[in-house]
């Protein structure tokens, strides 16, 4: 199993899905998604046998751009997250029928391909290309298969597209500048360069713009809620489950090692920004009327905390951030799926029109409850591990960060339980709510199983990511 | 005759052709009659040719003159085509006022 095979599987899968026709497309896509997941597991086992997972070949001679893929523990963890979530997301959409579904599923696989490439690439330009490539499919998915008024949707989606694209351009500029300085785009060499403090500052800032918009951190988040609301749920899952993690992953992989001095100097600002996002997102989520929007803002709060953890520049912070990234990926996909399940039955996302579902569907209620609890980081769920580690690392920087960041467990509980109360509890709803189908149940059960398993036994993931994170930390600390 | 530049000086030729060239530019900007604009362009071309020849003499090198020769050939072609275009514009629009040719408007 070579690392390129994963990408090839996904790309071929996208083509095969497109040519398999509308009827078979979902199944073909699922098959290839699972194949990619199996491939990732193979890679994992190779990695565990201490094999270097690498693929380098010269792509363009001048400027020197390599087609360089490299999978260390961190990249593998993210790859696994991507390839594990993709089949789940595809499977979750089986209850819906889409027009022109062959294109729809092909785009999903294509997006997975781009995102997997982003996590694996170790050459700056290659990484940049994958990064931008992932934007194209989601643009079409949200635009064509989204919901709500077409004009409104177009406005939101185009805004998202241009906004993130504009942010990334700064990153490209930074890469070009780095190339002028070092003559290479390879992360291996970029993370060894000795740039002056001013240079680092500007490069850090350029990267930051790209990532802050993608993650998103406040105040760059305005695209998020609208796109989440307008995109089809599958698109929302892809966005929130995986694509946000691209930004966070890139912070750890690219931004910190390349400009560590700037990171250290302005650490407090960025941690503060992350925590401000936590509080802001939580408070805004309180009064949302739309279920998906509420979840979008909760996502904003969570990624704020993750970003704050990453910017602490401690092993705990990085580790917590990665753990929380994975946990959040699963839980947010689950929650959006719940929103979709309700939508399939009630055709609405307005919280005010729901309520009284529990009496009709106890199974669904339990699963929803568990997801809500995981989202508010109840101990023994995976999210707790991540949140605890991140908060601990924040407390090592300054106890006030931990206290302010910790308000997430209060505010998070407040808005999630309030939402749960108004969506599920109360007098039995007059409209019939059919209990979850087997497919829906299976999807949720898989997600819940993952959350509990790693909540109780996170050691495999911790062992997987720790060496790479230590490596990155050495690079970050090379100026001391 | 071979000491002509000793008597006049290359700089006077430079001034002459610069002023000639600028008159050409002025004409292009000032007039709106396409034919006159055309003539102005010819003046500019000639200014440049004159300078070429002057420098050719100054450097005692034939290349400058060869270049003028080519530029004359090109000018001839240009005038032929350009005037043809003018004629066809005149036929279609019944005017050759460049102020009226606003199809480029974005």
């Amino acid at each position, binding site marked *: 199993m070579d690392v390129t095979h994963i990408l090839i599987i996904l790309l071929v899968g996208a083509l095969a899905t497109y040519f398999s026709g509308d009827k078979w497309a979902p199944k073909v896509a699922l098959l290839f998604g699972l194949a990619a997941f199996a491939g990732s597991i193979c890679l994992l086992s190779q990695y565990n046998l201490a094999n270097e997972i690498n693929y380098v070949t010269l792509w363009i001679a001048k400027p020197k751009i390599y087609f360089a893929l490299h999978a260390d523990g961190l990249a593998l963890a993210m790859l696994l997250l991507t390839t594990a979530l993709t089949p789940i997301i595809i499977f979750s959409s089986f209850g819906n029928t889409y027009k022109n579904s062959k294109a729809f599923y092909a785009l999903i696989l294509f997006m997975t391909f781009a995102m997997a490439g982003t996590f694996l690439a170790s050459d700056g330009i290659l990484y940049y290309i994958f990064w931008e490539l992932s934007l194209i499919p989601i643009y079409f998915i949200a635009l064509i298969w989204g919901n709500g008024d077409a004009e409104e949707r177009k406005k939101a989606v185009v805004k998202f597209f241009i906004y993130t694209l504009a942010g990334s351009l700064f990153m490209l500029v930074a890469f070009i500048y780095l190339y002028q300085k070092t003559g290479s785009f390879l992360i291996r060499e970029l993370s060894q360069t000795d740039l002056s403090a001013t240079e680092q500052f500007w490069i850090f800032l350029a990267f930051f713009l790209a990532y802050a918009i993608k993650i998103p951190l406040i105040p760059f988040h305005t695209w998020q809620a609208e796109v989440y609301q307008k995109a089809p749920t599958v698109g929302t899952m892809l966005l929130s489950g995986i694509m946000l993690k691209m930004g966070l992953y890139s912070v750890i992989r690219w931004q910190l090692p390349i400009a560590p001095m700037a990171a250290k100097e302005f650490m407090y600002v960025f941690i503060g920004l992350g925590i401000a996002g936590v509080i802001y997102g939580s408070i805004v989520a309180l009064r949302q009327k739309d279920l998906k929007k509420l979840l979008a803002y909760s996502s904003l709060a969570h990624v704020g905390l993750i970003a704050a953890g990453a910017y602490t520049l401690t092993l705990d912070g990085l580790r917590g951030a990665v753990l929380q990234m994975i946990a959040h990926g699963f839980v947010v996909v689950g929650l959006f799926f719940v929103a979709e399940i309700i939508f399939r039955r009630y055709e609405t996302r307005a919280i005010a029109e729901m309520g009284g579902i529990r009496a009709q569907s106890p199974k669904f209620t339990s699963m929803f409850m568990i997801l809500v609890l995981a989202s508010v980081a109840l101990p023994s769920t995976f999210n707790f591990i991540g949140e605890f580690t991140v908060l601990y690392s924040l407390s090592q920087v300054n106890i006030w960060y931990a206290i302010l960041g910790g308000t997430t467990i209060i505010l998070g509980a407040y808005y999630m339980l309030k939402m749960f109360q108004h969506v599920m509890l109360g007098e039995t709803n007059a409209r019939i709510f059919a209990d979850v189908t087997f497919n829906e149940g299976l999807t949720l059960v898989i997600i819940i199983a993952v959350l509990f398993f790693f909540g109780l036994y996170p050691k495999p993931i911790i062992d997987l990511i720790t060496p790479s994170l230590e490596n990155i930390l050495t690079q970050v600390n090379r100026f001391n | 005759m071979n*000491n002509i530049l000793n008597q006049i000086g290359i700089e006077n030729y430079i001034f002459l052709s610069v002023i000639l060239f600028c008159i050409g530019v002025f004409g292009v900007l000032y007039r709106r009659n396409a*034919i006159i604009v055309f003539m102005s362009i010819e003046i500019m071309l000639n200014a440049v040719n004159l300078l070429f020849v002057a420098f050719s003499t100054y450097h005692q090198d034939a290349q400058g003159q060869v270049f003028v020769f080519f530029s004359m050939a090109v000018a001839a072609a*240009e005038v*032929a085509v350009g005037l043809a275009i003018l004629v066809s514009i005149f036929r279609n629009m019944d005017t050759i006022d460049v102020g009226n040719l606003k199809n480029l408007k974005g």
Partner: protein
Amino acid sequence: MIRIPDFANATPIQIIFCVLAVITLFTAFMTIYSRKPMHSAIYLLICFTSITGHYLLLNSQFLAMVNLIVYIGAIMILIVFTIMLMNLNKENEVYKPRITRLGAIVTFCLMCLVLIAMFINSKPIVGEYTTTGEDYQSIKVLGKVLLNEYMVPFEFASVLLLVAMIGAVLLSKKEKTTK
């Protein structure tokens, strides 16, 4: 330094140059300034002739002849014919806004200034001019240069002229009103 012609002790050549230069500039200016296109054409003709004089002054007989033939003989005839063809010999120019005139004048001054400054700046005006006595601009030499070194461009020039001719014919041909 710029040599100001010493009019008191001017040599015949200097006088000839001055006269020619004045004619050139004056006619060029009148070409633009004349209201009637036909007058412009006549002025332009005189201008070109004076430039031919310059060429002769510089002892490049070949170019003087070519200039005479091409510009005065061919191009001017073309222009005059066009003017007559379109029957444009009337003051049909509409009112020009003041801003246009102002702009043109400003540009004219600016361009002169910049170009002259550039030439002065680029190289201190070269000192004495010495001749080597070598023949470089007789028709004989030019012919050799043209047909040895510049063979290919020369041929291309002919192709260009051919193409221009065909193009001119095509363009000026009356379109058949088939539509």
